[in-house]
């Protein structure tokens, strides 16, 4: 499952609404036995320190907990892991268009065993009927 978009009205932020929306997605992933979630996170506070450090360094510090990002830190708290950082992910002045790959593995995911249909029965079990 890819997280296309998630947004909350400015007056309703910092109330855990976004987190609850994310949990609803997690529930769908568990119920549908999906591998997990892939999304692009916008590190929206990067623009404040973009003059001082590279995006790699910034993300490293957010992951280490030395720095708080209003978007990325909350997603990490929800159990997302960080993957590669890509430029020009989305038009966003606040993250300078950077996008951070984030992945959540569904702990309940069970790979489905493919059951092949029996093509040929042993000779002794072959139906004996004579077809017209």
């Amino acid at each position, binding site marked *: 499952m890819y997280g296309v978009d998630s947004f*909350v009205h400015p007056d309703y932020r910092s109330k855990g609404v976004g987190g*609850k*929306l994310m949990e609803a*997605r997690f529930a769908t992933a568990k119920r549908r036995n999906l591998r997990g979630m892939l999304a692009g996170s916008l590190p929206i506070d990067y623009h404040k320190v973009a003059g001082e450090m590279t995006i790699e360094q910034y993300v490293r510090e957010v992951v280490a907990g030395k720095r708080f990002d209003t978007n990325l830190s909350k997603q990490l708290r929800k159990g997302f892991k960080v993957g590669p950082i890509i430029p020009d992910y989305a038009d966003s002045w606040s993250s300078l268009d950077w996008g951070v790959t984030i992945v959540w593995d569904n702990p309940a995911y069970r790979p489905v065993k493919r059951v092949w249909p029996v093509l040929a029965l042993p000779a002794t079990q072959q139906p004996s009927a004579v077809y017209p």
Partner: protein
Amino acid sequence: MIVHKHYFRDRQSGDAHIAVIPSTLKYVDQMEKLHQTAYGYVGYVPSDDCDECMTAAKFRNHLRVFPDGQFIAVDRDANEVVGATVSMLVNFDSAKPVLEPWVKLTDFG
């Protein structure tokens, strides 16, 4: 559709009137308006040059393809959509995730 009851239980006492429910077609216009408010482009007329503006038509399409992945947060007192989330089914390798620009992954929404 299964509505997960425990999402109605609220984390903080202050937001007891907010419910997360599966989104449906009747909310898509409100979602379009909310997207503009949330991303700060109210008044900007969505047009062809706005690749990343979410419109009612795009929300409708996601609802048709993957209804289980669409949710909204509703303020039950104000009877207003205050949050929304859109998801899409994709195949990916969790150990080596590859992310591409949003417009490419979603085909402009």
